[in-house]
């Protein structure tokens, strides 16, 4: 059980890091322009 909890936490941290890296990558690589047509 202890091993499961440690492993679970490790997996989730890895997932969070991977998602953060992908979000940062999108932020840097993408170049869409956005606006508010009805504002």
């Amino acid at each position, binding site marked *: 059980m202890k091993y499961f909890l440690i*492993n679970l936490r490790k997996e989730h941290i890895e997932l969070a890091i*991977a*998602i953060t890296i992908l979000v940062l990558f999108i932020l*840097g*690589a993408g170049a*869409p322009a*956005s*606006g508010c047509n009805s504002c």
Partner: protein
Amino acid sequence: MYLLILPMILGVMLGITSPQFAQQRSLSIKKPWLVVIAVLPQIAAFYIPIFREISAPVMPIILVGSQTALLYFIWCHWEQRGFVLMGVGLGLNLLVISLNGGLMPISYEMAQFLFPEGEWMQGQLIGTGKDIVMRQETILLGFLSDTIPVAIGSYYVVMSIGDIFIATGAFWLAYILGANSTRKELVYV
């Protein structure tokens, strides 16, 4: 930018709920620090007002330098399909940005689509983004610039072909991440 992050959220959710379609068992991310170092100058230059004013003259150098570093990051992951899609998208964006002075060109028509009340001049920057207003006929490889209008309610976005590749690659990678996050715990339960 939110429109590019949305496919990622959908990908993770789909991966968690329907992991059976994921052929790749794990996602290996090498040199993650490279992404952080490459993107930080962009965040400062485009999203933080104080730095934005200071960095205005060198924005094109920051954008091209940062995206070139991100292209190297992709080079390190060329064997993974999702990264290839993102790399093609980044390459297309970087190509049109580099050919047109270092910022993403957007036509008057598309600028008007985003802000109908605005009056746009050649060389004007749009909002806090990376876009610069140019006449359509002066844009080199104009079809790679921001030319695809998307409307979601009152939120309006103009995307490039490269952005669509990036969004597709992000969805793919997020799906693998979501799918694998459910598999590994099952082994130890």
